[in-house]
């Protein structure tokens, strides 16, 4: 009966690397889902840098950099936030897709990739929402309309709805492995759609009559302090994304641990049912 000696794959519920079990970390740290003291320090540093960076971007953007010539007063300052937000959105979705792939690939299948995908997608959706809002504000202050059917903005809006659907699917109840696999496949399918959506919307705009408003065709001389501020914006928002994902990931670990313990309790109760 050698078949029975093959162990069940415990990587799938995350128990294989002690993520859910006792570890060397203090109980207090365990209670918040952290994995090791050095990683903890690193995350704190990232968080601090992110906060400082974002604050600096805002300050520089609002007060230090000059107004651009052909913009209404002050609207160019959105430049320091809007593209970084969009950039993070792509990073987030890309990360979610990569994690989904890693989860589905048999060699690298592990619960941590599923949690990472979920965390990244959630943060991504938040940043997408912010991208849409800042894009809309830009349109409003520059051209007086709250919405333009600009290719990028429209694609972003579609991505927003697409990934909201993905998150809705993740929230449907089921055991971890099922949800993970289902979400990973759905995530990949959604991601496959992204380039198609982008190209179709671009063609839709470009083959139509010239639009009255078009965010992509701005001429902008970005130099000097503007360039530095923009760069700072990219960096600090990326750091913010990382920090948010780490914390969302920890939350997922805690939730999985809770479910695990709940399962043990349920097993014990079920067992007791029989001994009557």
């Amino acid at each position, binding site marked *: 009966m050698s078949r029975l000696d093959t162990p069940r794959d415990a990587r799938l519920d995350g128990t294989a690397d002690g993520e859910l079990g006792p570890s060397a970390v203090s109980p207090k740290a365990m209670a918040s889902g952290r994995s090791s003291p050095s990683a903890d320090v690193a995350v704190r540093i990232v968080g601090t840098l992110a906060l400082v960076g974002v604050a600096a971007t805002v300050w520089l953007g609002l007060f230090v950099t000059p107004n651009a010539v052909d913009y209404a007063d002050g609207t160019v300052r959105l430049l320091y936030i809007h593209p970084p937000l969009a950039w993070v959105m792509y990073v987030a979705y890309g990360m979610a897709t990569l994690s989904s792939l890693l989860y589905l690939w048999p060699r690298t299948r592990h619960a941590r990739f599923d949690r990472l995908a979920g965390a990244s997608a959630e943060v991504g959706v938040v940043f997408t929402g912010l991208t849409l809002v800042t894009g809309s504000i830009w349109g409003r202050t520059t051209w007086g309309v709250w919405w333009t059917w600009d290719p990028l903005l429209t694609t972003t809006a579609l991505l927003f709805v*697409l990934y909201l659907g993905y998150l*809705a699917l993740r929230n449907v109840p089921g055991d971890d492995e099922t949800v993970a696999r*289902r979400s990973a496949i759905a995530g990949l399918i*959604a991601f496959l759609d992204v380039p*198609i959506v982008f190209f*179709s*919307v671009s*063609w839709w705009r470009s083959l139509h009559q010239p639009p009255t408003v078009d965010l992509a065709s701005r001429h902008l001389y970005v130099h000097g302090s503007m360039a530095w501020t923009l760069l700072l914006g990219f960096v600090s928002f990326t750091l913010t994304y990382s920090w948010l994902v780490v914390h969302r990931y920890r939350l997922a670990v805690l939730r999985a641990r809770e479910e695990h313990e709940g399962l043990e309790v349920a097993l014990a109760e079920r067992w007791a049912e029989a001994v009557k």
Partner: protein
Amino acid sequence: MWRDALLVCGKDLRIEARSRIGLNQIAPFAAAVLLLFGLALGPDRQALEPAAAGLFWIAVLLSVVLAVQRSFALESSDSARDGLRLSGLDPAGIFLGKGAAIVAQLLVLEALLTAGVALLFGARLSGGLVLLAACVTASIGLAAVGVVYGVVSSGLRVRETLLPLLLLPVTAPVLLGATKAWNAALAGTPAHAGIWLSLLAIFAILYVAVGIVAFGPLLEDS
């Protein structure tokens, strides 16, 4: 795989022939959608005629959701997936079979809606070949994505609300492409539809491939 696909397609179409849900419920639903569009945007033909293609395709999109739900509901009330899993059929074959059955129903529906659009919105039908090509490629793409998301949501209690939410955003490119192709044809310049038809074809090929690969694992879940 092909044998199973034929088997499933035949079974689905035979059930449809007997129950006539598509004819009695989905087609009237689509017609009602067109009518409601007319009420909302009309009665002035000025507003309706240019929008005819778009409204047509939105009606088709909404009907696809119903058709997919029906396709899985007919399997057996609560345990749609159990039956399919136990049957011994090749999952890729099930995907192709169900998809093909939906495409067949969609084509019939689109024929009816074309008449409806010509009648209600005064669309002048020209460039028939392009119209047909758009219908075929778009239907294949829609059915493919539909069956994939359909199997995901079929086992869940939230399926009625989840399926539209998952399906409609993904099909946005199809809506765009098909509408543009139809606009080109209806405006008498079918040559301009080329790029849109290729978009539709790419979408269809891509998602049929995805379905063949992903349907099996998705069917297994839970």
